[in-house]
């Protein structure tokens, strides 16, 4: 069956693409203006002569960045937005929130030396000792951010299907080559799925809370000292509709924290 394109079809298709183009432009044009505003406020804060002016400028920049983050949610983005937000929290003295956003930035851009250095400074401010190194496998995954692994998976899988289609069409035996490409795609995709579904998510404690023996305020605490804000914990389970989380602290203690005292990285 041959597809016959009438002028009306062509006009409709062209209009659709034109609509997509303008929608994309409008969607991100307003964001560009706000980003410039936020950056100007950040620079004004850096050069402010008094503490109150500096805080006012940083707060303005922070508010804009947080609004943009909520609106666009670049969870698989470049990580530079999270880095800027972390810097602002640091400048405003809110170190636990700074730890959270530095970790988010490093998850997307693990080679960012500035983010790693600033995170260490933040830990020093909070009096938290540097955490022990992760297992080698997980450390390797951390260095290969999730979005990049998914990109690798996509292009490798696409290449594999193209190789197989070439084999089918032209009759050449490219099975070994296709198998190799699909294997690499499986590694990339499998590691992404591992990070998503098997590896325990991490969270940062934002408010000092006692680690409880079970999910509820009525249960006795694991010890007398609350978990220090800024501490990174592994989330092992979610209970009571998400109101309590079972966590493991860097010191190896396992207990329960209320959801409003921490945030997932």
């Amino acid at each position, binding site marked *: 069956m041959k597809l016959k394109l009438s002028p009306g079809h062509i006009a409709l298709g062209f209009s659709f693409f034109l609509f997509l183009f303008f929608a994309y432009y409008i969607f*991100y044009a307003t964001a*560009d203006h706000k980003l410039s505003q936020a950056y100007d406020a950040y620079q004004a804060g850096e050069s402010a002569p008094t503490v109150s002016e500096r805080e006012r400028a940083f707060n303005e920049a922070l508010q804009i960045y947080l609004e943009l983050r909520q609106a666009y949610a670049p969870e698989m983005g470049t990580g530079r*937005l999270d880095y800027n937000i972390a810097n602002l929290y640091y*400048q405003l003295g809110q170190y636990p929130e700074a730890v959270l956003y530095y970790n988010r930035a490093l998850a997307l851009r693990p080679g960012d030396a500035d983010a790693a250095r600033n995170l260490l400074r933040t830990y020093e401010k909070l009096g938290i000792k540097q955490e022990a190194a992760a297992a080698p496998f997980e450390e390797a995954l951390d260095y290969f951010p999730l979005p990049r692994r998914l990109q690798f998976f996509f292009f490798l899988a696409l290449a594999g*299907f193209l190789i197989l289609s070439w084999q089918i069409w032209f009759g050449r035996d490219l099975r070994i080559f296709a198998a190799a490409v699909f294997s690499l795609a499986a590694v990339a995709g499998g590691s992404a799925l591992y990070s998503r579904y098997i590896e325990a998510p991490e969270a940062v404690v934002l408010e000092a809370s006692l680690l409880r023996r079970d999910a509820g305020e009525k249960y006795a605490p694991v010890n007398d000292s609350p978990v220090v804000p800024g501490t990174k914990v592994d989330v092992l389970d979610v209970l009571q509709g998400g109101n309590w989380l079972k966590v493991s602290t860097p010191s190896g203690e396992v207990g329960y924290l209320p959801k409003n005292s921490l945030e997932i990285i």
Partner: protein
Amino acid sequence: MVRVIFLLLIPFFAAAQEVKVSARMDSGGLAENVPLSGTVTVEHPASRHVDRESFKIEGRPLEAKLIKEVEFSENSSLRLSLYGFTLPGKEKGLYVLPPISVEVGGKRYSSLSTTYEISQTSVQASPKTNAPLELEPIAEAPSPMYPGQRALFGYKIYYKNPTEILEDSLPLLIAEGFRKIGSQQVADVPGMRQITQEVEAEKPGEYVFGPSYIIGQPYERDKYGRQSATGEKVRADAPPVKIEVMPLPANAPPSFNGAVGSGLEFSVSLLSLDQLTVGQQVELALKISGEGDLSAIPIPDLCCQPGFPGMFQESDMPPVPTTREESIIYSVLLRVLSPHVKEVPPIAFTYYDLKLGKYVTKTSSPIPLNVTPPLEEGEPLLPIIKEEEAKWPQTAYSEKTGPLEISSAYKLGASDLQNRPFGGWSVFLVIPFGVIFLYIVNDLKQKRGVKAEKEEAPSSRELLHNALAEDEPGYFFSLLCSAFLSKLEEAGDIPSADIGFRQLPEEGAAGEVRRFLLEIEERRYAGKGEFDLNEVKGEAEKLFKKIEEKSR
């Protein structure tokens, strides 16, 4: 001569120096109105004995019991003797432990005086029942209680054996509706733990806390310190506690900010110089004296008092209180903002008097100041800001910023608000789409192959021509079959030529072909009749033409 005597006495001095006496209070048990325990340590040669009946403090005998004696080392003759003593209990506060003297080897030696502090509230263990675990609520609050007043909430937990608390519901420690002052205080005595929390009432109302409970597991430790459970879990309950916070009367004066007390007095004095320039600070002492818990009484809000907005700026640091007997003094720093300041204005302090049952306002006297403009040229004079406009005093002289500790931020673009292309979870759709793509490619390939095969296949006429040109009977017969079957397929008599001639139907043109080919085969193999190849070819050609004409 004196020198000789002195030299002769040196050994005695040396021996005397070997005896040292020190005394201290045991820090772990210093609670108010509880007997105070202390330790006297005597370092002496073993040959010189300590007279245990000779301890004295402030000239009075002091009973001391030997705790232990320790030798310094095998090669030393020195010995350390520790003696415990007890003094009567006292109220909270800072005290001096006078020198304690003792005779050692017939000679009296004394310790130096030291200080100690009693800060803990007295804790006494007095369970009401014989239960293994008992819970007693604590709610020490004034009656009636008003917003701004403080109370002490908490619990006493009595236990017969060491018990690990597994679960608890202690609403008095949460004190919902009250503002917590400081952190929880925990005091332990044998058989009892007391947990208290100081709170402040914020709003009037009736508050019910409880019922409360705790669940614990008794345990014991072996000689290695390992803990093991003994017996069943135990539970202790406490009834609900009701606290009523009465509302303060309406129509409070504007300067009232929650202070509650009885017979309070208020005064303000200047602690710094009265001669200063604009931008310098004055230090004031705000003194509140009277009955009751003065630490709970807030100082007046200077920012909103007449004469302060626009003229003075308060420090960001909260005022530091100093407690004296029946008074509390707050040290307040104010920065002078204008050269038009002539005095520290009168400060109004309003509180609700519990005995009088009404609001009472005490106003301090103004304090003259001599303020001169700043000396630096070009330093702008601040204009007088109207009281109603100066809600937040200008911060022209705010603290200067320090150097930045971290590097600058990135200049972001729209791409920083987007996910990386093909960096999301939807990329896994490449699998089903890829499989579908392969299926389509395979299908297209197969159709293309069938079509090519069809295009390459020779016509029935060509097959007949090839058959008639063949001299070998076997090949001739095979080609003849293919020619006739192909012809029948072209004519539409059969659906496909991919069948044997025996499968042809027996009627019509197909039946004629079937009979003809069977007859040839019989001639070839059964020996029926002669098999003349040329004759057969002629017959085949005739039959072929006949079928061809029929199909047109």
